[in-house]
């Protein structure tokens, strides 16, 4: 086993069973089909793919909410099929979901964040230390005494993230964490994710439909029909505009604009990722 790897998945397959009207199994549908996923500790990984491509099924494997029908998956060195490691795996890989309202249970921000560590059976003093550190890491320490109901969508999602990091996971899996947020909230959450990755060295696995959110990832995977069909750096991925579009994906607007200009004969580099890069490249023409 590779000590530098937090996720080691080989040949992962998973099938959903479809039942008929009488409740008897009628058909099997492959949601994951031979997926290999290797993630090194401290990486920022992004997973793209259309609705139904298998992204969320894969995410649910990473903290053993689901276990593979075929293949093996080690999270932080623990085999997800082995039930005795369940708690260890869930402490290694925390999950953040789309809707912040479904993830917050406490009536006060700090209580909500303390729920996880309390459940882990930690002594009270240690719980409060973790709550403080987690809330500071997401920039919500000042709002610790507030009711979550008084927070904006982005703030709620940051509290949900704090609740996960209070359990000190090595890795956080975020399944479309910004889908319900306004542009400001999206920016807040993205910045929080990046900081956790850079400062706390937490491995990030981000699933999203917003292309501009993945430009700072170390590696991007694109899924289609339960398989990983593209992988590479954001620059490599986003230079293949047409291939991405064939998987119902898109590219950031700055990238698309650069690509269109290139097609019209302007001498621009491939795979421009941001507004700044495009403006610089144009200024150098």
């Amino acid at each position: 086993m590779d000590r530098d790897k937090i996720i080691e998945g080989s040949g992962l397959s998973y099938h959903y069973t479809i039942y008929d009207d009488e409740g008897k199994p009628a058909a099997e549908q492959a949601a994951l089909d031979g997926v290999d996923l290797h993630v090194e500790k401290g990486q920022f990984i992004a997973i793209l793919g259309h609705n139904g491509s298998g992204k969320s099924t894969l995410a649910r494997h990473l903290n053993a909410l689901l276990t593979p029908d075929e293949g093996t998956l080690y999270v932080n060195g623990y085999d997800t099929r082995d039930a005795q490691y369940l708690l260890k795996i869930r402490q290694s890989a925390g999950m953040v979901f789309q809707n912040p309202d479904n993830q917050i249970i406490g009536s006060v921000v700090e209580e909500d964040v303390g729920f996880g560590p309390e459940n882990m059976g930690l002594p009270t003093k240690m719980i409060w230390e973790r709550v403080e550190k987690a809330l500071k890491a997401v920039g919500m320490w000042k709002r610790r005494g507030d009711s979550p109901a008084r927070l904006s969508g982005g703030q709620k999602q940051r509290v949900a993230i704090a609740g996960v990091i209070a359990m000190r996971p090595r890795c956080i899996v975020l399944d479309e964490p910004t889908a319900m947020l306004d542009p400001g909230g999206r920016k807040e959450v993205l910045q929080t994710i990046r900081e956790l990755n850079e400062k706390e060295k937490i491995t990030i696995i981000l699933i999203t439909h917003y292309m501009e959110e993945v430009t700072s990832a170390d590696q991007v995977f694109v899924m289609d029909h339960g398989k990983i069909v593209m992988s590479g750096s954001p620059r490599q991925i986003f230079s293949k505009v047409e291939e991405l579009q064939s998987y119902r994906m898109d590219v950031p607007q700055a990238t698309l604009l650069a690509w269109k200009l290139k097609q019209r004969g302007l001498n621009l580099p491939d795979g421009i990722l941001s507004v700044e890069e495009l403006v610089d490249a144009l200024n150098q023409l």
Partner: protein
Amino acid sequence: MELRLEHVGHIYNPGTTYERRALDDVCMTIGNGEFIGLIGHTGSGKSTLVQHLNGLLLPSEGKIYADGEDISAEGYPLRKLRFRVGLVFQYPEYQLFESDVLKDISFGPKNQGLNPEEAIQRAREAMRSVGLDESYETRSPFELSGGQKRRAAIAGILAMNPEILVLDEPTAGMDPGGRTEILQLLKKLQEERGITILLVSHSMEDVADYTDRIIVMEEGKILWDEKPSKIFSRIKELEKISLAAPQVSYVMAALHESGWDVDPSVTTIDQAADEIEAQVRKRQAAAGHAAAQVE
């Protein structure tokens, strides 16, 4: 039809400790086949506002007129208003409930009092306009993919033949391909059937690409009600209220700032490409001309 809001205010739980003002002096007129975007951060009052448009909520202050008639007046047929102004909520697929798609979509028109054949006819038309063919009629709504479910849910509202269609984040959680399908469907409904579309969205790119007019809400008030090019030239002000402009606007603003003679109010990729290409060609021609003179 035309909906006119005059100084509309809405206060939740008046007279209690939970009293909260959600709308404040809102004045606007919608109708006449426009494609309108409604943007604002979470909690700015968008959802409260849209629930007023078909009388699900009635104003605490001010008046709403539908084709000149006060909808709060005693005896006003609110039920009819709800058929004329169709409201598609967030995640509308959670509201699918019937055993097959055709039954689900014909539920609305049946409720409108149409006889079963007419209701089925309307449902079939609605299915066609959202791109679900006959083979889907007998399928369970729960077997459909995410994008198909959402289109079926929209068809359920369309089957009531609304004149104004209000959609609260119809593309939330959808992949880029699915987003484009829904938005192009809305554009088609607006262009071909003259339905007024009011799109509530957190995607500045989508609003910039599809709408003719954008209403910006902040703290229950309408902050601006203008063309997209006007709205998205206020990048700094939008960011202050947790909004943004499409990336294209940032590119054009930055180019303009570094001395390019491009229109900074451009909001779509194709317009931007035209502007930039024309500028580059002009510069190249000038450079070529200068070089020729040196020679």
